[in-house]
């Protein structure tokens, strides 16, 4: 479980996060939505220790990540996390297979001779079986996202953090990535935190959604609860997001 308490982060005098708090339960898919520049990516980076908050606590399985100073200790905490960056962040000088298996050496004790087998397995999961020897520059945007996803799940983390997983992708590839995220959560029982401005994605696959605005999670609830929210800011944001293209989903949250 991840518990965020009173998280504050200030950039150049501006409070990007101002006392934000949330609880993310094991196995759930938790989406964070909000206007551009509201601090969604900052929140995600604080959770995994890439950004140190100015105050507050981030309790991951009973451990306050925000207090960890030692890089080796932080690396041990990060063993439980996979992170899908907005642009993929694949290493340009390595092939797809080398990218996917990169973390196995540092995050796990799996022998090196097993790495390639695991890499192939994860690439097959994301539909990139034939891309293992390609370099990132030779991949399309959708393929890069999928390769980055394979890398994020290679060490079979407990938590996966997704930073705008469908941004910049065409609708078909977005749908594919959405299905992959959903399958991963269902099959591997991974806890997912998704930061997105894609309201349709959030409402399709999330167990709960939180709206970040003015540095705080103003409203948190299931997709149905969010739809029914009387908060005018939330209502307006969601209605605007959902009305841009029809997307039907069954009521009551992601069916599990």
């Amino acid at each position, binding site marked *: 479980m991840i518990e965020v308490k009173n998280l504050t982060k200030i950039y150049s005098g501006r409070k990007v996060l101002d006392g934000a708090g949330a609880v993310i339960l094991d196995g759930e898919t938790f989406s964070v939505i909000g206007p551009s520049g509201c601090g969604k990516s900052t929140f995600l*980076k604080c959770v995994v*220790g*890439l950004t140190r908050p100015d105050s507050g606590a981030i309790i991951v399985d009973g451990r306050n990540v925000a207090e960890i100073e030692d890089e080796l200790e932080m690396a041990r905490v*990060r063993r439980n996390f996979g992170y899908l960056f907005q642009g993929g*962040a694949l290493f340009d*000088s390595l092939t797809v297979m080398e990218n996917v298996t990169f*973390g196995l*050496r*540092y995050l796990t004790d799996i022998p090196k001779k097993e790495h390639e087998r695991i890499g192939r397995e994860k690439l097959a999961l994301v539909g990139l079986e034939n891309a293992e020897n390609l370099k990132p520059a030779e991949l399309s945007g959708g393929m890069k996202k999928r390769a980055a996803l394979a890398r994020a799940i290679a060490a079979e983390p407990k938590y996966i953090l997704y930073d705008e997983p469908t941004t910049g992708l065409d609708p078909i590839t977005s749908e594919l990535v959405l299905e992959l995220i959903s399958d991963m959560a269902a099959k591997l029982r991974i806890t997912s935190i998704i930061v997105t401005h894609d309201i349709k994605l959030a409402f399709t696959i999330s167990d709960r959604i939180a709206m970040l605005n003015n540095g705080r999670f103003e409203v948190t609830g299931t997709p149905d609860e969010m739809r029914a929210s009387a908060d005018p800011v939330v209502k307006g944001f969601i209605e605007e997001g959902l009305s841009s293209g029809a997307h039907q989903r069954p009521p009551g949250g992601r069916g599990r």
Partner: protein
Amino acid sequence: MTSFFFKSVGERSLLLARKLGAVALMLRSVAVWLFRAPLETREVVRQSVRIGVESLSVTILTSFFTGMVLALQMGYTSRNWFNEPLYIGTMVAFSLVKELAPVLTSIVVSGRVGAAVTAEIGTMKVTEQIDALYTLGTNPTRYLLIPRYIAFMITLPLLTVFADFTGVMGGFLVSSVKLNVPSSVYWNDIFTFMKISNFMHGFIKTFGFAFMIATVSCYKGLHCEEGAEGVGKATTEAVVMSMVLVLVLDYFVSAMLVAVGLI
């Protein structure tokens, strides 16, 4: 007007102090992680090939022609003064081994490789690949900086040895073909006067240059501003700064080596 001047000086001083502090923190991190985690041997080899092997041809070309022009200049000057080309081998070898080979090799490498290192690390920073290193269980010091530091410190001195040799050969070519100096005279001029301490003077300097080029290139890459413009600006600054610092450091290191008897 006066307060604006002092404010400007104050702001620049604070900025410089912050940057020097950041460099010091980076160096501390390199020193700590050098012993804290296993070495990324594959990366050291890869960087050594990039920095050393791939710079060999340009180093040889630069030093060969430098040796040739030294011999030419010294030969004709000597002829004007003494009616014959005297001690060409001595002057070419001493100039190259003690000064020109280390400095020119360092400048060539800082322009060719230093720029590439800054651009690579800077691009990694702006595309979140540095953050990705952290999430995958390692860190940029361990995976990026230390291999580059080691590669620079191993390959730059070795490149300088190649530069010494090829520069002297370039001088030999001009002195024997153009100046008609017998080859035995050319080589005797070198080996009569040159001691191992003269060679070590130039060789030791390159370790200082290598460390400095690695520091500037890595620091500029890690601290570049966002976007392609930020990376481009950092790359240019890294090259200019490295080249200037090679020349500045050259004086101080030379003075230090002379003071301890390595003349």
